[in-house]
């Protein structure tokens, strides 16, 4: 384990400003504001080659460089973490909120921003309180407000709570929501960097991305870039869940393999069971199987293997898992969270969910599998019907954002990987693994000892 962002997480009460400062907090802020120009800070971030941790993996320094010379401009932190399987941002916020606040102040300085919002998921009640209080304490200490640390730099940070809508994690929907509207995504271009909040240039970055900024300033971009692989620099937090013996957030150097993450950190598949599949990068990613586990945790290597690193949510399923039930559950999520703007997504997701449910419940029809794929191709016309699915098949898409295409992946990746299992459900009129997940909560506790 190479801990950078998670170093303080096990320290008692590291969320308090005095504790955070004892542990070296706000030193990067002083360094940036007192000894570096905004351009120099931005340059360090560029040198680090850090890629966005929110899902798309876009190089942060490059994105920052897209801001036109227009003011005011804004910085918005995406703390809406809702991708099933992802729980890193919540822990970063609950246990080390000042790291994010410090990163936000430094990033705002680099970007010449004087107003910033942290958009946090509404359900994260404790996290929001931690952040609100961290921000207030930062004002009290002179790290926010007018003339920060005696410099000319002014900044306000507002903690803004969402209210239960996964789609608001998508950056343009997030901005609509922050403007007080329904969280509906907008067509890109224009990208937020050019036309974002209140139609002004806006940088949207993930919590984990911004939490890395104080470390990059402290130790230098070159140091950060020395970690990880050539195209995927630094460390990344992976949220490991599902059928592993020790689920949790693990921060590792990029380039570590899935196998090592699952075996060395997660202590292997529960009960010594055989692995069935792994969802490698959040609910929207193409499933992996045993033979893919030597793939390194690296944006490009995972893409080359047909999936995506995404948000870093690694969900492990053992042999007792019913693929139909898992697929139905994922598609149900996307169907429920579709904002309803685009017909192919609104209708297509609901339809796919309905078909998957009837297969799972034993009422599937022989033509249902082809029907599923055909509904999917209404959202992603390049979707193939056979062989293992590749992430590239979801381009192009007929919707504004990629929520609909994500539902197609959640349906087609398992269907094409385990088609026989789907067919068996239809033939038997029941789940061959009758007990579904095959284990009750009590059994699980017992098996854990």
């Amino acid at each position, binding site marked *: 384990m190479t801990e950078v962002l998670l170093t303080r997480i096990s320290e008692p009460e590291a969320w308090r400003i005095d504790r955070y400062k004892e542990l070296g907090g706000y030193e990067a802020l002083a360094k940036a504001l007192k000894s570096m120009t905004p351009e120099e800070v931005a340059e360090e971030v560029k040198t680090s080659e850090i890629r966005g941790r929110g899902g798309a993996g876009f190089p942060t320094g490059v994105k920052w460089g897209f801001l036109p010379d227009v003011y005011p401009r804004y910085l918005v932190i995406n703390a809406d973490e809702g991708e099933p399987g992802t729980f890193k941002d919540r822990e970063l916020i609950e246990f080390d909120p000042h790291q994010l606040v410090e990163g936000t102040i430094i990033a705002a300085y680099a970007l010449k921003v004087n107003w910033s919002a942290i958009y946090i998921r509404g359900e994260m009640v404790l996290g929001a309180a931690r952040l609100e209080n961290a921000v207030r304490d930062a004002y009290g200490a002179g790290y926010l407000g007018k003339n920060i640390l005696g410099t000319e730099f002014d900044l306000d940070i507002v903690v803004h709570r969402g209210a239960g809508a996964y789609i608001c994690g998508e950056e343009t929907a997030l901005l609509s929501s922050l403007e007080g*509207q329904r969280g509906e995504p907008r067509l890109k271009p224009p990208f937020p960097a050019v036309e974002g909040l209140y139609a002004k240039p806006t940088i949207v970055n993930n919590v984990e991305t911004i939490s890395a900024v104080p470390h990059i300033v402290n130790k230098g971009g070159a140091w950060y870039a020395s970690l990880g692989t050539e195209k995927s620099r630094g460390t990344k937090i992976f949220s490991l869940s599902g059928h592993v013996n020790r689920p949790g957030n693990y921060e590792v150097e990029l380039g570590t393999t899935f196998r090592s993450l699952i075996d060395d950190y997660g202590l292997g598949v529960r009960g010594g069971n055989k692995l069935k599949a792994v969802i490698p990068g959040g609910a929207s990613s193409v499933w992996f199987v045993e033979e893919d586990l030597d793939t390194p945790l690296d944006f490009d290597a995972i893409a080359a293997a047909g999936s995506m690193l995404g948000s870093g949510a690694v969900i492990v399923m053992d042999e007792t898992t019913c693929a139909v039930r898992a697929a139905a559950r994922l598609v149900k999520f996307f169907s429920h969270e579709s904002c309803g703007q685009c017909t192919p997504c609104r209708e297509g997701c609901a339809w796919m969910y309905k078909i998957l449910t009837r297969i799972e419940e034993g009422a599937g029809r022989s033509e249902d599998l082809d029907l599923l794929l055909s509904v999917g191709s209404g959202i992603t016309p390049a979707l193939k019907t056979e062989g293992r699915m590749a992430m590239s098949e979801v381009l192009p898409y007929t919707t504004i954002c990629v929520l609909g295409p994500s539902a197609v992946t959640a349906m087609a990746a398992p269907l094409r990987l385990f088609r026989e299992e789907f067919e068996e459900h239809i033939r038997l009129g029941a789940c061959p693994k009758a007990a579904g997940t095959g284990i009750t909560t009590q059994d699980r506790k017992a098996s854990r000892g």
Partner: protein
Amino acid sequence: MSFSAENRRIADRIVAQYPQSESAVLPLLHLAQSQDGWLSPDGMREVAEILGLEPAQVFSVASFYTMYLREPAGKKIISVCNNISCMLQGSDELLERIEHRLGSKCGHSTSGGEVYLEEVECLAACGGAPCLQVDGEYFENVTIEAADSIVDSAMRGERPEGGKGLPSDFYSEPLGAPSIPEGLGANEGEGS
């Protein structure tokens, strides 16, 4: 409803935090809900009035977000995650058990109005699956036995034991209070 004098003052401070006042719609709706326990039409109208918006616009926005309760709910709210990682760890069985013990179905309140039970999407606590929230407090690795005792406490109107903490355990300021302390804002007086 209408905002108490104290909440009205907080509302004005919240509005002043944003470069444009419409941005305060969600926080003011949260404030109204926290005061009344649900979001009444009158509450939404008052938010519209404060922000100079049409009530219809505020109704439309509120209806987009699942956390706004547009009907009075049970006194306590149990929210069970039923997404993939929790499902893999038995959340379906957990939900069934809770429904059985409450004697009411998901999406409904118990007959005496004690508890409202809902199914929610991934709560970002998948490492502690299966998980649930009671009034926003996280409970992780919930066993059947733990679920029974959570339900029993909630039915008695008590806060169940074993949770991960609520803001009030740590802070005196209510959740949603303005982030910017009075008089310390950098952009004071510049809002629209």
